[in-house]
């Protein structure tokens, strides 16, 4: 594979040292703190980055947004520099520049300064981690800043789209994927509460310090060891306390449409859940290579969809996470050919499980893309530090670039094909369409898809003794169900048609037939319809509500 992973063994209680690359060294202190040093003497600066496993994935409803909040308050005052102003003055005196990085699984703060100030900077980090002061004035100001940032983010159609995609892909983990702090949580935030969570998230055994720049690793380990020795290990890790919800796999394919005037161009995303890094970190290299293969201009998807005029552009995105990973195919469809584009894209994605979908030139291009990505990630010290920070939080490992020779490339291609067979071929996915109302008119109305629901949410309601479908809501629901059936032709479902005992005989059967005919009229194939199990029920009701429930057609997934 093009990456090699090196385990840092940071759970060992004793100090362990290792050299993980030519210029990268790591050491694990007794209190659990991991220290990684990147030696790079190109410029006489040093960047110190403190990364913690904190993010929405580790948060409950009560503390949603706390990772962001604690990050904002990191340089906002501590026992040595009680106010943000004093802290700013100190940073200014050191000529330091600060910043932060974040994902749903990690949070980091960093500081860049002249190498001369390394020790001062380490002390500053110690003060910030060990003795933060959460003065309400600073907390309030950080919350306002955070809410403003969130308001801005919510105006971003791609953010909204991703939110919707997560909701469909990981319905039981939606809360964990939603990073937004609410005003209710903000109003219950207190310095005591923040201190409690800060101690947990910023404990040495949940943290890693990355020191990069014109430094000597031995000297840095000595200085960092001396400085952070006093930090006490926590008995629990956030992951122990806020155990993330096990993300359930998709049972069947779903679709959604996000219609917003904010959308600039129509976007079709076909997203497959793939293994998380915590489950199988090694498959991630196959995912990386596949991403590069799709993004190279010679990819089969590109040839079929773009070159043949069904789409403007196609790319892929591998969301490589510890919790809730997905592989997304991102397509800019041509509105007038949307239906063909969608069908062809699905077909070509399935074909990715075959060798014939890849050319030698494409593999070469993909490796070059990976090389290029790594080259740019490692050019600047601070960027390299951020790259390692995110990797540490997700995998405990440091990726190393290895472009590989041709035989290695072929081996890697085998792994990619295996990956596609395991996770794409006939596997359920979520297809999302981002569109603005004004763009909708350009689409072929019969081709554009609709949002599908969970099977159990499809309920066709009738009025008393009625066995025909007139209600537009019902028609829309059956249309949606038809689409669900079309994209899940192998779905084994039971159609349950009910009638109340007060209704005339065979109403249930008539209702079933009405639904059946309408499904047929919406293009559901005979094979799919024939495969459905039909159950007709005559039910008793004691009240109006029960009566209404008895006048429905419902659907149920029959587990194989």
């Amino acid at each position, binding site marked *: 594979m093009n990456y090699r992973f090196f385990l840092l063994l940071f759970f060992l209680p004793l100090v362990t040292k290792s050299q993980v690359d030519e*210029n990268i060294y790591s050491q694990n202190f007794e209190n659990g703190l991991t220290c990684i040093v990147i030696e790079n003497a190109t410029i006489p600066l040093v960047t110190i980055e403190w990364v913690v496993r904190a993010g929405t994935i580790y948060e409950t409803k009560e503390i949603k947004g706390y990772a962001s909040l604690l990050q904002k308050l990191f340089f906002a005052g501590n026992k040595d520099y009680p106010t943000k102003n004093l802290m700013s003055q100190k940073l200014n005196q050191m000529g330091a*520049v600060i910043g932060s990085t974040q994902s749903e699984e990690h949070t980091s703060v960093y500081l860049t300064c002249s190498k001369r100030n390394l020790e001062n900077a380490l002390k500053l980090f110690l003060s910030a981690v060990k003795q933060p002061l959460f003065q309400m004035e600073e907390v309030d100001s950080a919350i306002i800043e955070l809410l403003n940032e969130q308001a801005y983010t919510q105006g971003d159609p791609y953010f909204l789209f991703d939110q919707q995609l997560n909701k469909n892909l990981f319905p039981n983990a939606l809360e964990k994927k939603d990073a937004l702090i609410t005003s209710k949580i903000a109003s219950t935030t207190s310095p005591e509460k923040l201190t409690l969570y800060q101690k947990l998230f910023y404990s040495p055994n949940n943290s890693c310090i990355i020191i990069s720049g014109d430094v000597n690793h031995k000297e840095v380990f000595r200085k960092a060891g001396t400085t952070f020795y006093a930090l006490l290990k926590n008995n629990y890790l956030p992951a122990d306390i806020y155990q993330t919800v096990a993300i359930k796999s998709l049972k069947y394919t779903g679709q959604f449409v996000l219609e917003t005037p904010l959308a600039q161009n129509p976007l079709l995303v076909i997203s497959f859940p793939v293994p998380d890094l915590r489950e199988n970190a090694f498959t991630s290299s196959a995912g990386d290579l596949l991403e590069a293969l799709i993004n190279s201009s010679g990819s089969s998807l590109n040839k079929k969809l773009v070159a043949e005029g069904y789409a403007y552009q196609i790319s892929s995105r591998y969301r490589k996470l510890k919790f809730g990973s997905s592989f997304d195919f991102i397509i800019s469809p041509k509105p007038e050919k949307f239906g063909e584009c969608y069908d062809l894209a699905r077909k070509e994605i399935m074909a990715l499980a075959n060798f014939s979908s890849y050319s030698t030139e494409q593999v070469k291009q993909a490796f070059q893309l990976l090389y290029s990505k790594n*080259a*740019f990630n490692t050019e*600047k*010290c601070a960027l390299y530090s951020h790259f390692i920070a995110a990797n540490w939080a997700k995998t405990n490992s440091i990726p190393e670039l290895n472009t590989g020779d041709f035989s290695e490339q072929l081996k890697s291609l085998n792994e990619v094909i295996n990956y596609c067979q395991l996770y794409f071929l006939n596997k359920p996915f979520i297809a999302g369409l981002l569109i603005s109302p004004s763009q909708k008119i350009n689409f072929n109305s019969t081709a554009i898809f609709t949002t599908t629901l969970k099977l159990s949410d499809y309920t066709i309601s009738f009025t008393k003794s009625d066995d025909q479908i007139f209600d537009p809501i019902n028609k829309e629901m059956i249309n949606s169900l038809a689409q669900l059936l079309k994209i899940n032709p192998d779905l084994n479902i039971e159609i349950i048609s009910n009638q109340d005992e007060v209704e005339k005989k065979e109403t249930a059967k008539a209702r079933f037939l009405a639904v059946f005919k309408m499904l047929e009229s919406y293009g559901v194939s005979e094979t799919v319809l024939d495969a459905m199990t039909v159950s007709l029920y005559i039910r008793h009701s004691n009240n109006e509500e029960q009566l209404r429930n008895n006048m429905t057609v419902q659907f149920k997934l029959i587990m194989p």
Partner: protein
Amino acid sequence: MRIKNFLLLIFSSLLVNSGFSQSIFKGTKTNFNTNAKTDFNFSRTFVTQGTKYISSYKLVDITDGIQFASITIINSKADFKITVQLTIQTDTTLFEISYNDSLGSIFGLKGTFKKEPVNKYPLSVAFLTENRTYLKVNQIIRKNTSSPEHFLLDRIFADDLLVNTTLLEKLKGTQPTGTGNKILVMADFGVPNANASKSADQKIIPATNNSDNTKTAITTEPVKPIEPKSVANPTVTAPIEQPVITAPAPLKIKFTNSNVKDFSIDSIRTILKPVENEIVSVQLFINGGTSNYTVAKEGIEALAISWALKSGTKTMTAEQVQMKMEQLGININYSLSNDFSVISMNCLRNQFDESWQLFSDLIARSSFQTDVFESARDEVISSLNNQSAFDILKQSALSYSFVGKQYDKNPNGSTASINKLTSDEVKKHYATIMVRRRLTLVVCGNFSSDDLNQKVKTGLKGMVNGTNATTAIGGVDFNGSTFKFVSINDNNINRIIAFSAAPDAGSQDELSLTIALTILNNRINTEVEQKRNLTNDCELNIVNCRQNFCMLQLSAADPEKAIQAIIDEIKKAKKIGFAADELQIAKDQFITQYYLQNESNEALALATGKSEINDSWEDAENLYASINNLLLNDVNAALRKYIKGFRFYYSGDKDAANEIIFTQKLD
């Protein structure tokens, strides 16, 4: 073109202290072949860096103001090593310098003095008598591969080396021995009265026309430069092959521990900054800048380069070039300044060969497709729209301040000037500037010198030598303040730009003033911006160019109050000086900001090249140490010495700017 064979004699005064001092002296150089004498000025800088004593001599021709040579003597107390570095700034690309070793073994035998090769071209020897160190530089100049010409280039006796008492103690009384060697006396150097040199008051000893001057040199025909055949009728698409002369790069005067390699590839000055990452940045500097054309032809260089890059090559059409660039993921861009133009490319190390091939083909063998000319013109004109209001005011200010000088021209040109340019004259201009003697190639990447050497040799094969760029700088008086109203206000914003004097690029004074201005900016930020809210975008910095100057830039609702507050801060700083803690903070701030901006390979290569164009690439390499070594006295002195007045240029509400406020004295 003349080769400057000269005899120079420097007597330095006893400026020996632990700090820094600089004086300007006058000397005489003699053209060795004609015995013609011309005056020159030389300045001497003496600094200590740890256990090193460094004397630098800068020799400037009085007639044209151009620096023609530099000498640096580095005396290392720590390892008893004396390094002499000599740089001849002019005409070096025409000849080869080699070392005449006849005196070299004198101290080599003792093992206490080591001749230090400088960039593989050792050229000097040093020797000591009882209490004085003499330096003599003997050179053989070769014209192409014909017979060598010897001449005595330089003689120095440098009292400042006396400061290395430890070294002298060790050597004192030792008589260098060896076949053919002798202790030289002043007379050997044509100095009639050696004792005169002991006088600290005597700062100039005119060079004599003593026949001794010539006795060590074998005079032959004057060295004639090889004139490029294609200059009169330059063609780019089919350059006439020139005999390529392998010449060493000019030797550098500054000491550095950096890993930068500085060499010449077929007369193209090349600087390689090795870095251990997978990105390669190539920056091709074309010397001359706005001195390469007249005011009427402003924009011609931009259009010439744009046209060359937008066209195809001999083997590829413009479309194929674009496709290849997309495939390689590279962009080839250019930018312009008053001192130089630069064409740049960033690529991946493992695709460097292909990328460089494309780059060099476009640079040296562009097809100058006629159908692309108009779109290149449109592109250059449309880039003029990207100029901010401050850019426009700055350009006006430059044209007023530097009227008749190199900086009064706008390298971007104007719509009118660009529209008048014809394809023939643009192509001709390109042929004039894209020549070996005007190029400095800076590469930042994971290379060895040999790797790069071969690639550049092949890639730029066939490029002509051409002529050097001639620059006309100097002569702007910044001693008193002036005020000029330039235009009415735009959107009710009053904008001010002002220029003041600055030290030469690369000098110690430049660093001192840089830090002084960093502190001053901090004070202005606190006192004028934050406390009084009189402006929010004030910046006072050294512009950092060949003819250095400082620039103050701000916008203000009440320009009089803002300027008064800023002037008050300047006056206060000049009168009282800065505090020690302010100095340290400013050093750290400057270092962080500077290096964060110059972290990428591209930025590093640009900084290195710019530093070289202004003075010497070692300035950029030594910056960290030099900044850290600055003393408070130097910083205070620099502010007092250079910020004596501003040339103010104002765009805004005419009634809101009282000239008297602007033109008040700064002391």
